[in-house]
């Protein structure tokens, strides 16, 4: 099970979403992608997309205005 981190701190929409989609596309089922974000809009559109695509998603608040989106590739 590989784990990959994606630093999207300081990036605005839609950059975190496109980067997450590209990164997950290169990964295998069961791999985990951790996206670091500090843009509240990405806190909604990245998990929305990942859940819609059928992956397991968890959102964690790391600090004030900073979140980790943890996506486990399910298919």
């Amino acid at each position, binding site marked *: 099970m590989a784990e990959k981190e994606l630093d999207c701190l*300081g990036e605005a929409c839609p950059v975190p979403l496109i980067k997450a989609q590209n990164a997950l596309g290169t990964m295998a089922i069961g791999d985990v992608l951790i996206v670091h974000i500090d843009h509240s809009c990405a806190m909604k559109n990245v998990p929305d997309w990942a859940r819609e695509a059928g992956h397991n998603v968890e959102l964690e608040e790391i600090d004030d205005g900073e979140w980790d989106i943890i996506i486990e590739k399910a298919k």
Partner: protein
Amino acid sequence: MEEKEKKQSLWEFYFKREWSYTTGAVLLSILAVSLVLVTGQAWGVTGVFHVWGGKVLSWFGINADAFPGFNGAVGKYIFANSQVSLTNLGIVLGALLSVLLAASFKYKKIKSRKQVVAAILGGLLMGIGARIAGGCNIGNFFSGIPAFSLAGWIFMVFIFLGAFIGSKMLKKWFM
């Protein structure tokens, strides 16, 4: 990964969790209609940008009122009497209030030179576009379409076209 089901506090429910699009749309409509009822003028954002630009030029000794189309707008300008200026200040203060209430305030670092170029280029293009179109997505689109403005509909077609081309440019050069 297991789903944790926690009970939300009132603070989390109202301020922390993002509001749905429906909640936002209803609140925006109520506020926009109230603004028209109270002041008689629809909500706009970019309508004062040329005056602000003229003000900045005046600090360097350039009289923008001499340009065609200004009609003394810079000389007559008073911040407290300008509805658009006041609502623009309100947008910034409201955004600040919402992040403070959500405890999400954060200084963001500038990631790269590319990001700076993209931001400046994007801002300039939007500003120039809004002035040429006679309004931005607020004055032209949000306030225009409910008032049966044909310009609003034409604006809508081209804003989609612009957003499409803009996203392609973003993907190609700025990611």
